[in-house]
């Protein structure tokens, strides 16, 4: 079914303006709520940029789910493991680029090991079993990474500037504060998505991967064994995890909580659909922005620290209206 462009051009701006107007209205009644359009946009942009980071994590899930219907809970610990390994290698005196490449190699090896030791023996098992197996991998990698590199918080600095800058100073009073780091992270994320898109569209392996997503039989006719495809897709997911780890790690330090950012990505996934790469991106942006706006403007009313669950409730409410997610097609059930 062709994706209609028009709604995507109209709905998001409309939703943003509508939300702004709503909050403005509330602030008019209740003086506790501080609202200016500049502040609103600042929060929105910060949230959206944060959302790109969520999208990065979600991307790793989607890649694997698309190719093998496995819900890879270990994606989070892969992020931690990659970041730990890279910090560790840099601790040995390697330049960050070399460390990055070496870690990428490690992630490929890891993917092959997982395919051989876990996925292959479990082929044809119900999805829930594979899901549980990835939780097993989650525990293993968590322990393994910290056994190798220790569990103290480490700094990861690859020289991304962190100074905040102000933009649109002439339009809004005081301008809008934007974190430079977030902008760069967003650019990296965008670049990664672009590279993946090219990989999927233009290379033979990429096309095979898409074939697998549609139909395992068809994939076999492409001439690439399923196990190779799985190893490749897990490697790609591993490299995505590495990029995610670098970005998140340099933002908040490399420590074991990094593994838990997987939990952040989950609402993104149900919002965007488990099999849709654009869904992961757009879902991430919506969740990031929504969460930030809720935290800033709603915590007065319902209490603080709501970012723990707000994204989930948002995604769930969305699903109740549209069970197939943002980009899913309407399911026609057959009997």
């Amino acid at each position, binding site marked *: *079914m062709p994706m209609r462009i028009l709604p995507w051009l109209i709905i998001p701006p409309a939703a943003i303006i509508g939300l702004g107007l709503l909050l403005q209205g509330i602030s008019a009644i209740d003086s506790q709520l501080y609202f200016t359009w500049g502040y609103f946009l600042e929060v929105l942009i910060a949230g959206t940029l944060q959302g790109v980071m969520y999208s990065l994590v979600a991307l790793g899930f989607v890649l694997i789910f698309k190719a093998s219907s496995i819900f890879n809970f270990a994606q989070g610990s892969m992020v931690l493991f990659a970041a730990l390994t890279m910090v560790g290698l840099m601790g040995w005196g390697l330049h960050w680029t070399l460390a990055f490449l070496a870690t990428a190699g490690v992630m490929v090896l890891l993917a092959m090991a997982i395919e051989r030791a876990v996925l292959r023996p479990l082929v044809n098992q119900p999805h829930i079993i594979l899901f549980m197996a990835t939780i097993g991998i989650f525990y293993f990698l968590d322990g393994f990474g910290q056994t190798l590199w220790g569990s103290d918080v480490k700094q990861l600095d690859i020289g991304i500037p962190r100074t905040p800058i102000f933009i649109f100073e002439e339009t809004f009073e005081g301008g809008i504060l934007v974190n430079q780091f977030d902008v760069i992270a967003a650019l990296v994320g965008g670049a990664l998505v672009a590279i993946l898109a090219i990989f999927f569209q233009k290379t033979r392996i990429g096309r095979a991967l898409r074939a697998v997503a549609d139909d395992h039989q068809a994939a076999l006719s492409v001439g690439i064994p399923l196990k190779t495809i799985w190893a490749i897709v897990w490697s790609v997911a591993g490299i995505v995890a590495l990029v995610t780890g670098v970005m998140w790690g340099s933002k908040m330090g490399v420590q074991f909580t990094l593994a838990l950012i997987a939990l952040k990505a989950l609402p993104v996934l149900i919002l965007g659909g488990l099999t849709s790469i654009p869904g992961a991106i757009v879902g991430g942006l919506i969740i990031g922005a929504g969460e930030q706006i809720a935290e800033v403007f709603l915590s007065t009313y319902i209490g603080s620290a709501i970012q723990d669950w707000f994204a989930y409730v948002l995604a769930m409410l969305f699903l109740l209206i549209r069970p197939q997610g943002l980009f899913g097609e*309407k399911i*026609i*059930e057959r*009997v």
Partner: protein
Amino acid sequence: MSAVATAAAPNQNQQEDGGVTQNTARVFDEVLLEVKDISLAFGGVKALTNISFDIRKGEIRAIIGPNGAGKTSMLNVINGFYHPQDGTITYKGQVRRKMRPHNAAKQGIARTFQNVALFKGMSTLDNIMTGRLLKMRTNMLLQAIYWGPNQREEIRHREYCEQIIDFLEIQAIRKTPVGRLPYGLQKRVELARALAMEPELLLLDEPMAGMNVEEKEDMCRFVLDVNEEFGTTIALIEHDMGVVMDISDRVVVLDYGRKLADGPPDEVRRDEEVIRAYLGVGH
């Protein structure tokens, strides 16, 4: 077109096996279900166009047609799984509003599926017992205690299911998980489950698909027996034309979502359009 082979078969078949044949022409007057001007489409793809026919109480009604003719969609419409965009369904004299399949079940419409839709994790007996769920009344608390009213109810329904098991001759597999059964037996268990609902209208979607000759004969016998012993009205989809001509009272023919013909088997067999559709002339 795969239908050619099966369409050619019945003429020889007819004379040879006299074993299970509905030999006398039976007459039915009371309309049990009537579909009128039904149209169904999925996002622009038309599955059914202006279909009208009726099913009369007590008869065996066959729905035939080449692959993709919309037969299964028709059954799905009848038992509330699909909602047609146009047309009305009158069941037992009442025009039916939009309804979910479980409402249809409550009103006495049971069915089996083209691809066996049994509950794979349960035994044959438990599968059949699920057919009794609509008739079970004890509440959750009594079920938690089990003994007393709930146990008595369980036993009462078990007795009913055992009669069906006996009727369909599946005693030996009573406690076998259905996943382990061969295909032919699974189809029989599915029929048993539908019968456990004590349906007034039984929809059978290709009850004999994928069976060998012997299994087909058994199934034919069961279908006839059900119709005869319980007086159940049966609407069935079947590809084996020999079977259809032998056991059905009236036949409706669909092709590309349109109705081609409707009438007793002999009449339908001679219908020009039906012959053309089956032989593929003009396509």
